[in-house]
């Protein structure tokens, strides 16, 4: 495993008063994630599921309240500025080895810096000599398909289109030759045709550089095409995990089944045949999650035990895991003939 988060929890204070913190937002509740070398692990879920918090902790932007982060098997979690517990080399390796691409292409580039300056900062962080940086920046831009390189190096972010900005973000992430790139909804803000271009680019770079992706997304259709493994999150917990084909073909957790059923299919012939599972209500507040199984108030197959007891982790022989008292009882809708 190249990057691991073991039992990660994160609580944010929610409303302070004179007597202290009034309540806590439980953004993440003991999530364990493992990214293998060169693979794409998708982290899917709705807003409030904790997927972004998990990504930010693994990227070292947030510090977990509990749990630890391991990079190449070595402990790296700790406050941003604090001295690492296991020697400087490992900390530096982690900093350069794990990079991030954000959803908002505009906000993730400093408006006062040209593309060239942005890449220069990143290359300098890696310790490259100033003389070699310009050439390296040009090479990076060429790699992400921004040509002619010369004109783009001198541009400011507001002079680029959304797709071009996201290419620059990918180039910056790539500049430290990372082993893992955490991509938080990297294509959600982009138009359809541009989205495909960025996904193709990311796929090509993965093959060339053997970089692993933690692909955070709410879009299951994209996940199906790009990820080898999927982890589904709900209210700060990973409720299902497995190889992509497994999870999409035989989802075990009722929430995964409902998510798949709620995702529109762009083929009208198939779309009409489906029976949809419509979950009632909203995702509960992470300030006061329901007792027992966090999903039980919306679950179509919930029983009395679900409101009482936290569900066990069920693991199939093929390595698919689900956090549910009744894993596998809710069958996927009437789609999918011939999908075995």
């Amino acid at each position, binding site marked *: 495993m190249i990057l691991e988060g073991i039992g990660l929890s994160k609580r944010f204070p929610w409303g302070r008063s004179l007597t202290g913190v009034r309540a806590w937002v439980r953004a993440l509740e003991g999530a364990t994630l493992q990214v293998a070398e060169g693979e794409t692990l998708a982290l899917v879920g709705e807003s409030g599921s904790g997927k972004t918090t998990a990504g930010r902790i693994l990227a070292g932007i947030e510090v977990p309240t509990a749990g630890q982060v391991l990079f190449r098997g070595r402990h790296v979690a700790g406050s941003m500025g604090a001295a690492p517990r296991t020697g400087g080399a490992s900390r*530096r390796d982690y900093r*350069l080895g794990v*990079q*991030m691409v*954000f*959803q*908002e292409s505009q906000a*993730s*580039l400093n*408006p006062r810096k040209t593309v060239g300056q942005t890449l220069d900062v990143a290359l300098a962080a890696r310790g490259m000599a100033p003389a070699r940086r310009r050439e390296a920046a040009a090479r990076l831009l060429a790699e992400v398909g921004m040509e002619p390189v010369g004109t783009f190096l001198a541009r400011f972010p507001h002079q680029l289109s959304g797709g071009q900005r996201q290419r620059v973000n990918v180039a910056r992430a790539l500049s430290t030759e990372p082993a893992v790139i955490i991509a938080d909804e990297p294509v959600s803000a982009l138009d359809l045709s541009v989205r495909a271009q960025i996904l193709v680019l990311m796929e090509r770079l993965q093959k060339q550089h053997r970089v692993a992706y933690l692909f955070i997304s709410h879009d299951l259709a994209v996940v199906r095409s790009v990820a080898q493994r999927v982890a589904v999150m709900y209210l700060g917990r990973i409720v299902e995990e497995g190889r992509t084909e497994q999870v999409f073909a035989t989802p075990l957790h009722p929430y995964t089944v409902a998510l798949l059923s709620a995702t529109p299919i762009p083929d009208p012939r198939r779309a009409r045949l489906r029976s949809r599972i419509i979950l009632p209500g909203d995702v509960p507040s992470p300030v006061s999650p329901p007792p027992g199984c966090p999903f039980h108030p919306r679950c179509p197959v919930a029983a009395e035990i679900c409101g009482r007891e936290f569900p066990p982790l069920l693991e199939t022989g093929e390595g698919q895991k689900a956090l549910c008292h009744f894993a596998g009882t809710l069958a996927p809708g009437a789609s999918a003939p011939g999908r075995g």
Partner: protein
Amino acid sequence: MGREFARRFFRSRAGVLGLCLVALVIGVAIAAPALAPRDPHTTSLVTKGPPGTPGYPLGTDDLGRDILSGVLWGSRASLTVGVCAAATAVTLGIAIGATSGYYGGWIDALLGRVTELFQVIPRFVLALLVVALFGSGLWKLVLVIGILSWPQAARVVRGQFMALRGAAYVDAARVLGLRDARIIFSEILPNVVAPVVVIASLDVAAAILLEASLGFFGLGDPNLASWGMMLNNAQAHFRQAWWMSVFPGLAISITVLGFNLLGDGLNDAANPRLDA
């Protein structure tokens, strides 16, 4: 971006007028030795000569010193104090505001209280007290005024840092492992320059006014020809020689107005949304 800013700035008449006034005052301060007909400290037998007295276009004071030369030379003292005190205030403001806004938490709470303390104490009274206790002098004035004027810059910088410390590009810099100092100075600070320039301009005006007020109460640098000292001197002779107070007063008004208009113009150009 700079061109767009300039275009918006030059569209505002008040801002351009402010720029012209400021340029005028700076020009006068630089060229004072050449422009002033005589030494501002040299006394003569023509005491309390009214404006139009031959050789003394703005008249003379009770010791026969030339008012015009005093006003021209006085611009140097006022500008020096104003600009240096504002620079001190803005530097302090950036340091405190950036620390407070970037780190947040208890550091912010502590620095916030300190800022509030400095905001509620009456600046003028404290300045009077300090000067009265420790004596006056150009650099003492600069330091006192600067130290008493930083809270406004600190508050603006803090607000901007709080907003920008969570920006995705700042997160990206953290992921690259950049040190906090590097993030503060090279990633965030350049994005905060516009409001800081506005504050600096307003601070110059306020500092000039404060210096003149101290001078008026006789607490200015006695070795310096300053507008405040001229006003202080004019107090006793106000009924007989109005020109002793009017011309330095006018000079103060024009300078302060100039910096204020410039600050407003820069502010409007930096925040185009306020147009609507």
